[in-house]
């Protein structure tokens, strides 16, 4: 019943965001007549091959630098809306990222079409139904689209695993970027990337995450040491991101990243549902918390009731950590 399904393929500083290939993998399973990707900004031409391999028959692309220099919402929403008016897709899948939300929210208002956020899955049968989770994934809600198309859905990161489809190279349609001068009123003047050594948080096989129970921002150094010894990445709860201990790029949870490592070690994290929604797909979960009643223990395979910084220091020492490791943690009570 769906003729055309599109994916908003986000570029992340020139390269394709992983969400693009995840969403295309899903899009091509919906039995639609055609699957296309919209990819806007410098790097879109280079990304077309990958998009094609993951199921995009057509890639609507623009290499206009304005898409990277201006806030993405306005210019990208205008371009998507113009493409919609020409090609009439039924459904557009967006990543639930900062940029994806900025574009989808504006497209919804511009075209007067519905948008469903926090989607985890989508099915197309008689109706098109989106599964999303509410209340920290304690409840699943299925919502059917009605009314005007295209229908828009914003997916949580890593809802699908990207798999190449093979197939022919996509048709690349260069789209004119006519940037409304109004959008030039807001521009990005500086970008800084948070790059940590080692694997990225979303790819790492081990994630060592810290929360307020670490007591002192300096104790994140312990987590970094442990992560390094385990070839893993460091994550965090929102409480410590909001407190400015670590950058938002490390946040795991509903409004942060979704991680599914082999082992997730939660250090001094209470286990609020907004946090656990981002990590409960981990294969093994270890939690260290001083409070035996902490909700995190309800889903941990192994729970240690104790001081997080202290247990982590000892773990570092046991693993033969670098000099300086295993020193008494900061401010531990």
């Amino acid at each position, binding site marked *: 019943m769906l003729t055309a399904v599109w994916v908003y393929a986000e570029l*992340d*500083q020139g390269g394709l965001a992983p969400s693009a290939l995840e969403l295309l993998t899903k899009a091509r399973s919906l039995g639609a007549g055609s699957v296309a990707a919209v990819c806007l900004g410098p790097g879109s031409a280079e990304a077309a091959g990958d998009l094609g391999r993951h199921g995009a028959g057509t890639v609507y692309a623009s290499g206009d630098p304005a898409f990277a220099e201006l*806030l993405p*919402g306005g210019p990208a*929403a205008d371009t998507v809306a113009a493409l919609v008016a020409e090609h009439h897709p039924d459904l557009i899948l967006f990543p639930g990222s*900062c940029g994806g*939300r900025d574009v*989808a*929210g*504006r497209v919804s*208002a511009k075209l*007067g079409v*519905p*948008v469903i956020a926090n989607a985890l899955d989508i099915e197309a049968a008689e109706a098109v*139904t989106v599964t999303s989770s509410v*209340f920290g*994934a*304690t*409840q699943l*809600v*299925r*919502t*059917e689209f*009605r*009314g005007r198309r295209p*229908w828009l859905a*914003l997916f949580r990161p890593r809802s699908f695993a990207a798999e190449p489809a093979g197939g022919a190279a996509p048709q690349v349609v260069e789209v004119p970027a006519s940037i409304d001068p109004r959008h030039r*009123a*807001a*521009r*990005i003047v500086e970008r*800084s990337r948070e790059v940590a050594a080692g694997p990225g948080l979303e790819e790492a*096989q081990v994630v060592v995450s810290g929360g307020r129970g670490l007591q002192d921002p300096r104790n994140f150094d312990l987590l970094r040491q442990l992560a390094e010894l385990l070839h893993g990445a460091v994550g965090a709860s929102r409480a410590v991101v*909001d*407190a*400015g201990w670590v*950058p*938002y*790029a490390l946040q795991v949870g509903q*409004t942060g990243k979704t991680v599914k490592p*082999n*082992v997730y070690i939660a250090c001094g994290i209470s286990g609020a549902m907004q946090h656990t929604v981002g990590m*409960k797909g981990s*294969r*093994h*979960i*270890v939690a260290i918390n001083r409070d*035996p009643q902490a909700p995190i*223990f*309800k*889903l*941990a*395979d*192994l*729970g*240690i*009731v104790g*001081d997080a910084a202290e247990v982590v220091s000892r*773990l570092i020492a046991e*693993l033969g950590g670098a000099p300086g490791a295993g020193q008494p943690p900061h401010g531990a009570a």
Partner: protein
Amino acid sequence: MDIAVCVKQIPDPNTPGELDPTTHRLRREGVDAVLDPGDEFGIEAGLALAEAHGGEVRVVSMGPERSVEAIRKALAMGAAGGVLVADPALVGADALTTARVLAAAIRRGPFDLVITSTESTDGYTGVVPQAIAELLGIPAVTFARSVSFDGSTLTVRRQTENGTETVEAGLPCVLSVTAGVNAPRYPSLRGIMAARSKPLDRLSLNDLDVQLGEVDQEIVRVEPAPQRKGGEVVADDGTGAQRILELLRQAKVI
């Protein structure tokens, strides 16, 4: 500078939320309603800008009649006035409808800046700010972690999945703020007293120039999500690290 801050009253987030399996609406019985704690950051950001650069903060809300309590809290913090759009036709409104109503309410007064939170604590669709901006035809500077204003240009450090971006924007614009942006003030006793006499407009849909579309989405099923079972919880008697090592070995991490 005239600042409109969007605030929402929500069921107390400390009581776990639940959707009624038959009506598919949020269960509200026996749950206190509070000003969304996320919105306090928006109110604070607005008040700080108005104090430094002149102007007033007006709060705008859509919700049931009892949302006046949330607006009163914003007034007690220092907002100059408030608008509540309450209408039975808006029960269960989706993100687009919400944005249409808020944009129409904002347009009734002068505004240079519209401030929202990045997402509501109960609904967290996180697209209402962008939709408002589109309807008002202005930029949306979202996910702000810090905000400064030099009298003409707003400089915002915004957080993204990979780091931060610094954005410069002229007015008018929509600004959505994260919880890391400031430390909201508490209402003072004087503020609470003063709030009683501040203007609070109550509007219904008839008062607004707004076109609502058809119902475009419908919840067809609500069910509990599969939950993970917990394992062993042991007190750290000095062997906690050893126990973790065992698990790491089993998981073939080391």
